[in-house]
């Protein structure tokens, strides 16, 4: 005999769990401000050094190209890195130009909404 099943009640989206208490608009605004500030701080802390890393590798590459014998055998991994990161740099610029980061928090709501609606096709149960 099956034991009391735990996924539909406890773990499944679209089930009959009571709705969560909604935070007040003031709390929501405060938390959104905090979120934005933290995102900006971490963006600067992460993306600036990573750009530095990219430029550094590029500089190493140029140095080696100009005949620094010590690092010449490292040219293969370095080229790999530069090609991959160069591609991502282009993608980043393309995404920015195409307003991919415009309403930056919107996709998370759209995704959740779609998920819940897809699950409702199954009557809220798997």
């Amino acid at each position, binding site marked *: 005999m*099956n034991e009391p099943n735990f996924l539909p009640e406890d773990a499944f989206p679209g089930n009959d769990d009571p709705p969560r208490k909604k935070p007040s608009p003031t709390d929501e605004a405060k938390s959104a401000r905090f*979120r934005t500030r933290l995102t900006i701080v971490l963006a600067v802390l*992460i993306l600036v050094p*990573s750009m530095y890393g990219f430029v550094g590798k590029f500089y190493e590459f140029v140095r080696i190209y100009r005949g620094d014998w010590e690092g010449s055998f490292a040219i293969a991994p370095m080229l790999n890195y530069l090609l991959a990161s160069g591609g991502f740099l282009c993608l980043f610029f393309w995404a920015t130009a195409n307003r*991919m980061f415009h309403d930056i928090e919107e996709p998370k709501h759209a995704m*959740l909404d779609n998920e819940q609606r*897809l699950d409702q*096709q*199954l009557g809220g*149960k798997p």
Partner: protein
Amino acid sequence: MTSDVKPLLPRHDDLVNERLVAWYFLAALTFLTVSMLAGLLVALQLIRANPLDGVELLSPARWRMVHTNAIAYGFLANAFLGCLHWAIPRLTLRPVASVALSYFIFSAWQFVVVCTAAGIILGPSFQAQDWVAELASQFHISMSLGAQGVEWGETPFWIDPVAQLGLLLVAINFMTPIVRQRGPMYVSLWYFMAAFVWTFLTYGMGNFMPEYVVGGVSGGAVGGLFIHDLVGLFVTPLGWGLMYYFVPIMLKRPIWSHGLSLVGFWGLAFFYPLQGIHHFLYTPIPMFLQYGAIISTIAVELVVTTVVINFIGTIWGDGEVLKKNLPIRWFYCGMIYYFITCFQCALQVTLTFQKLIHFTDWVVGHAHLVMFGVFSMWIFGIMTYLFPRLIGRDWYSRKLCEIHFWFSAVGVFIMFLDLGLAGVFQGYYWASLAPWDVSVTGSQSFWVVRAFAGLMMFSGTLCFLVNLYLTWRGPVRELNPDIDVAPALA
């Protein structure tokens, strides 16, 4: 924000091929079982209790490679492909490019994994045959028929092109619905898209460059980049992408900050590939490259922090759910282990630390925590959540699901602590210039504990398999799909 009048969505059944997801999961679990048995065999060999001692084809050296390859390409790759067949169509509201192609990739991938195992096990014995040597000299093939001499790239040279083609087809099949997306993309799709490109490039770089293009130390540098990128640019983006998808839908609340998750993504894209050389500190690779790798490894901790902050922010105020929601518990336990491994990484990448732990069991402990404690645990969480939907039945036993969780979580943590400690001891034995044998004898008790920890993990997996079988035999659940839907978008 979403508008009030919502367009109809396609039918789930038109988006997701559930049968294929189930097949991928079953293949993954089969290879996991083989790999764990192989791991146990190697563990027994190290405590001089190998039951297959003397059987050449089943020698531990071959089985160690089967252990790691079956995990990477048999378990993780299959499980990820199954998860992606669920997540990508639902995220993009478009099916994959072709279901027929999906089935072809599924079969081709199993062929690749089985051939890899066959090559590793049978290759060296075949190589010794006269007719093979003759053919090799006739066609100027100087490579080994068995394992290729690249760590994690042991897939024999003759199967590499097939695997590379398979990865290309995977990218085409999944990228098609992603590139048809219009407007801002959800973070998981960024990760998946990147993973398809990175995995293809990484596999090609690691398996072809050292074999045909660059040799010596330069080949070593490429090898370092390869083993690191396999974890960082194949497993990590897929794992994170899946967590950004499954955690919010299970908690029924959006991820705390989508902006922060994108910062993490771009940080990973630019930082991660810089670190490969950190596997080869104290080697003839120039110091400026070694220092660059060290600094970027420490910097990646910041990237990891964004992920951890985001997931803590998402579950904040709802910790109770960890008790009753098993998939969420798998996910968050994996995240704690993830943070531990990354913290460990920041320490072990320093030259001071490397002096002690390089080549010791510390690294093996670290590898198990990250591969099993993090990514496998996330996969188990997803399987625990999805299997009832895939086979239309509720889990037969919650108790067995709980045992699977606790045996895995505790077992791998014991293994991690035990091997970490063993590594420190081994490091000091070697530093004292005592004979090698002394360090082997000194490691015995740690290796015995490792074997028991492995048995615990394996027992957990067996519970999961038994539960799955009993669930599959149980009664089917009634569904109620009467709801308006739109045809799937092309």
